[in-house]
């Protein structure tokens, strides 16, 4: 829970009140003191109710608790209700990535066949320090894999060989720790021999891709929360040998948070890093009635224990970790702890605009929300 806090050298200025001088201070109240002389005078003032300036409660406000509501359409043409969002738009080109593109840019790497007949996927990953405009007007000094957050969405087939040449071009040690089944010396945890990479160093991670499902990878250098929250993580998808059923849209959604002032609490939340990006008034995801949508959903949120996904006006089949071809649940809301992930499949019956967001509504109003813009199917 992000307590909105003042941080940084200068911002310890929690302005306590609307206006300090307005509140009765010790001094003011002590003035009541002068021996109770003239209490009669006090009565006069109470009766006059402060010269006609008694607090006015707007008509209809008492009890209703809705006086603050701006009437719909009060400002003329725009009859939309005010909704949380950021002010402005980030410069995606300068960032070098667009959250919308990250939905679908699956990376199979350089594919070849080994003498054994096994398929080999070769990747090159560089850890880079990069300033990213995560929220309009606010830059975040991120640590990235290949200059983007989340990093590349590796996608291979079950039992394929994966070879990743990792270069650490930052000033801190980093690693790549994959969720999957592999030897200990490919786990990226303890030392140089097992894939911890000092500044300027390189390491090649190599293992067979198993089991099939939707997985993740992240830096496993301590302090761990810091290395993940700064942006070192991504999706690792292993397709089953026989493949998934045919889908019209396959989308990667990495749920993450932004601790922009480094106080170990998130100020913003998102899927694919940029808060509110997929909202109705920004870049809603375009789909059509009847199309099968498959979401590879991964929770990489730091600092908050639980994240969630809620789909509006629809239900989805849920495959935890994507390791079974049989869904365990037909629902519209799931909760995921950190590192937990799964596959969602659904089809919309009706055209319209449908939100998807964390059902921890606070996260939703701090950026983790988006919209599917569902259009009528085009007749063939």
């Amino acid at each position: 829970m992000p307590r909105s806090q003042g941080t940084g050298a200068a911002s310890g200025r929690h302005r306590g009140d609307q206006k300090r001088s307005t509140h009765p201070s010790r001094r003011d109240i002590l003035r009541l003191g002068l021996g109770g002389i003239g209490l009669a005078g006090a009565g006069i003032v109470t009766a006059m109710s402060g010269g006609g300036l008694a607090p006015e409660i707007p008509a209809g406000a008492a009890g209703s608790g809705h006086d603050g509501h701006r009437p719909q359409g009060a400002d003329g043409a725009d009859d939309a209700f005010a909704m949380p969002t950021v002010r402005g738009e980030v410069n995606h080109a300068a960032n070098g990535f667009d959250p919308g593109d990250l939905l679908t840019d699956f990376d199979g790497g350089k594919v070849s066949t080994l003498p054994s007949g096994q398929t080999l996927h070769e990747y090159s990953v560089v850890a880079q320090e990069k300033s990213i405009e995560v929220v309009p007007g606010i830059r975040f000094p991120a640590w990235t894999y290949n200059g983007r957050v989340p990093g590349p969405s590796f996608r291979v087939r079950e039992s394929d060989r994966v070879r990743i040449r990792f270069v650490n071009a930052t000033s801190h040690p980093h690693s790549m720790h994959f969720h999957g089944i592999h030897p200990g010396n490919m786990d990226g945890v303890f030392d140089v021999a097992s894939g911890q990479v000092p500044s300027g160093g390189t390491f090649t991670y190599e293992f067979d891709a198993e089991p099939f499902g939707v997985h993740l990878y992240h830096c496993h250098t301590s302090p761990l929360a810091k290395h993940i929250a700064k942006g070192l993580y991504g999706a690792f998808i292993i397709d089953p040998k026989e493949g998934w059923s045919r889908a019209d849209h396959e989308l990667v959604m990495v749920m993450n948070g932004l601790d922009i002032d480094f106080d170990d609490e998130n100020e913003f939340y998102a899927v694919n890093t940029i808060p509110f990006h997929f909202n109705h008034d920004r870049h809603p995801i375009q789909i059509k009635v009847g199309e099968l949508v498959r979401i590879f959903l991964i929770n990489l949120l730091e600092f908050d224990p639980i994240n969630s996904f809620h789909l509006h006006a629809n239900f989805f089949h849920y495959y935890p970790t994507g390791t079974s071809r049989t869904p365990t649940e037909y629902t519209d809301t799931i909760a995921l702890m950190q590192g937990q992930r799964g596959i969602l499949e659904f089809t919309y019956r009706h055209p319209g605009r449908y939100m998807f967001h964390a059902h921890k509504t606070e996260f939703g109003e701090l950026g983790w929300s988006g919209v599917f813009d569902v259009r009528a199917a085009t007749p063939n």
Partner: protein
Amino acid sequence: MARRSLIAVLLAPLLLLAGVIALFALTKGAGLNIQPAAPNEAIQFERTVLRPGVIELHIRNASADAVTISQLNVNDGIWPFTVAPSSEIPRLGSAVLTVEYPWVHGEPYRITLFSSNSIAFSTEIAAAAQTATVSAGTLVSFTLIGIYVGIVPVLLGMAWLPALRRLGRRAMLLLMAATVGLLIYLGIDTITEAIEQAGELGGPLQGFGVAGIGLVGTVFLLDALSRRQMMTQRTDTERRMTLATLIAGGIGLHNLGEGLAIGAAYSVGAAALGAFLVIGFIIQNLTEGLGIVVPLIRERPSLRALAVLGVLAGGPAILGTWIGGLVSAPALSVLFLGIGSGAVLQVAYQIGRNLVWPAAERRQMPITAFAGVVAGMLALYVTGLLVK
């Protein structure tokens, strides 16, 4: 010619100094080239205005460099907002942020601004209520309150003059000494308040300096005025009248600050708090009237002269409510608190030096003077315990 050479001699060190500064800048701070690890930003929330469905924040940049406000959070939600004149606020510059937000009457809100450097600044609305708009009607009400708080109690206190003349000497001395104690206590408390508010002003506004200028300036101004009067006036009657005027003027400055606090309370919708302040001020100001007439016990001042003294002491409260209701400037508030504390302390000193200590010495009642001062301070302390 001599004049010209004098100017040259005066200017020479300044020119050399400019050269040294230029050298320092050119060598990037003697080669140290120090850059802060994080920007040192500060924002002062000067005023929060609530209208139906709208929250308006008046802020000032109290940091060394320009600050850009990028995003805004209300109670754990990111909300769009407009900012005038610009989201980039120059040093000491101000801006007004407007958020369309469906706030609920009586509920608390916490608003956090994020600068482009990811620094968060927070303010709280203790209980949301629509901000009173200032109109001709409210100004009339402010004037009425000023009269209630300032003029009426002071005049009522002065009406004790005939009764005072019948008091015994010891009782009279005790009463005067108690007035000194009350004023000292008020002075201490006002200084505390000034320091508290001064600490919340940003660096460039130098809150402690502002409070200090108000306090020291007022003390020496009143002192200078009294000395000038004492020099030109010969008779005891004239001197006593001067002392009474001085006390009335000092109390007037103090009441200006009180009016300011009341007006400000109403202007942010804290009207209930305002009414509470009014009652407190009325009770206190009754004794202020007493303080003014004490030097005049042996005199026969005209009613007109007494009325002038009363208005001098109480009238500024009216002015204070207007300023407090219309203007919102924390630095000004700190200045007035400094002035108010200087005024009451100076008045305490004048009463003590001219009335209490001479009488205590003459009548050999030093313990009575001591007891009076402490009783005055304790009276405020104890009633404070009861009221708070």
